[in-house]
């Protein structure tokens, strides 16, 4: 899932500026699961902003609403009225949600309430870790299901650098060395020979380096474009 963290209240206040009618929009999908921007968080952020406004004596009207998914037009249609009445929308969706609101409501000023961090999973209660870099050309079949693009600090493809120590990455003892994990897993699965092959330089065109990406599925399109 997409993970995110809330921006600090001071930054939210700056982003809102002198707008009076503030609509905080939560999202019911990824950011709900990572406790950053669901209906509960949207209500708390709205209450915090009301309290701050009271202390600052500027009488802002802050309300909140949460949609199932900010990244789908049909869910955004459901809040069209609230959005149109607001001076500003504070989106607690990921970066996709913020942009979807901007695109769907061209006359509405929208600002982000979260910092979208990575594609990952909760490794334990209260801890989220990065797992995928969305490079567009999955190599997990070569590395025992552990991604060195996302999890090695240098995205190495041919094994660990000299900075692997006691299972940790030298840049941060809190971070596992992805290549130690890959080595251990390949070793336990009897597949170490796969690591002896030289992996060629990656084709980064399928990644962000090839420019913004787009998927077109002709089989799913309702009205295929005329050739």
């Amino acid at each position, binding site marked *: 899932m997409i993970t995110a963290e809330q921006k600090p209240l001071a930054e939210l206040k700056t982003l809102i500026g002198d707008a009076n009618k503030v609509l905080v929009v939560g999202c019911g999908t990824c950011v709900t699961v990572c406790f950053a921007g669901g209906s509960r968080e949207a209500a708390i952020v709205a209450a915090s902003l009301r309290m701050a406004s009271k202390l600052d004596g500027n009488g802002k009207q802050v309300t909140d609403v949460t949609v199932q998914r900010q990244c789908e037009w049909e869910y955004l249609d459901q809040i069209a009225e609230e959005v149109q009445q607001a001076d500003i929308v504070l989106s607690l969706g990921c970066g996709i949600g913020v942009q979807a609101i901007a695109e769907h409501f061209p006359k509405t000023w929208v600002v982000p309430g979260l910092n979208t961090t990575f594609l990952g999973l909760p490794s334990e209660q209260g801890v989220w870790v990065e797992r995928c870099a969305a490079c567009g050309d999955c190599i997990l079949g070569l590395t025992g299901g552990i991604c060195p693009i996302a999890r090695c*600090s*240098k*995205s*190495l*493809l*041919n*094994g*660990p*650098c*000299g*900075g*692997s*120590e*006691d*299972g940790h990455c*030298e*840049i941060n003892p809190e971070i596992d*060395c992805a*290549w*130690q994990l890959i*080595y*251990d897993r390949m070793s336990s699965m009897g597949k*170490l020979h796969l*690591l*002896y092959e*030289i*992996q*060629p*330089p*990656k084709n*980064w065109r399928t990644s962000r380096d090839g420019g913004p990406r787009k998927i077109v599925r002709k089989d799913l399109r309702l009205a295929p474009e005329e050739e």
Partner: protein
Amino acid sequence: MTSLAIPEEHRTNGYLSGSNLERVLRAGHFAVTGELGPPQSADANLIRKKATLLRGYVDAVNITDNQTAIVRMSSIGAGALVIQEGLEPVIQMTCRDRNRLAIQSDLLGAYALGARNLLCLTGDHQTFGNHPDAKNVFDMDSIQLVKMVTEMRDMHTFQSGEAFKGPEPRFFIGAAAAPFADPVDFRPYRLAKKVKAGANFIQTQLVYDIPAFARFMEKVLELGLHRQTYILAGVGPLKSPGMARYMKKSVPGILVPDELIEQMEAAGAPWAGKSKDELTKEDKKARSEAWQAEGIKVCIQLIQKLRKIEGVAGVHIMAIEWEEAVKPIVEGTGLYPRPVVETSPVPTAQEA
């Protein structure tokens, strides 16, 4: 000394690059390389001064490429200055700061300026350096880099597969090895990948633990890697017991035996047990000199032990910001004067 078999079409008058380092190694001499760290400024004179300290004592000198991710004069720029001073550079190239376009373009320039040796590295992560907010590149890794420059030389093609439109850069290509880094069992195999990619010579991380290095070399010999590449063991003079303890504790992939730390401490024994305030400036200077003398002695002892390990073709002396130490170390090991190899290479087993 083993001679390496080199395909006919890959030769420059019988050599891959014809660099001094390659000639010394192919003639079967025990090679000595050094290290020169460029300044954090545009000071050409400093490079010339350091080159003067090393000239005649090493067969070639590595010029680091923004080591520990601290911005310094470029390896290629400093390397060109070193050439003017009559010393042969080993250009270091990391994958941290450049993509495949920039690496190839810079290497064409380096070759045109006279550089003939290249060390291919992945590069220290930028979070260690003085620009931790920078975006890193890592378009390639060190093994892919070795393969790319080998193909530039031997296949006359860019990484894209496109052919050169003129002379290709012909480097004597090196790579690094970290014998003691985790996972230790994988290290000889990672070295094998570098050799397979085309590495002509290898410079290792600092060696202080001789038995541990000997164990690594046993595996290297078993894999036959010493017959396909020249392995230069990394050594470095210790400046103080504190430096030894720091490396043991804080630098991944460096093993420092307690006996060595004790040997360094013993050198400072006359000043032991005194607090910082009790030591005069002269005391501190004398203690520092005693430690440094011992550090050089330890380094000489290490080189003498390394020379006896089968498959070790030379040493790479990393006297970082202490270039003055190289002269007494090389002299102390009987490796001075350095050989001059003017002739064609010794025929390989296949040629003979």
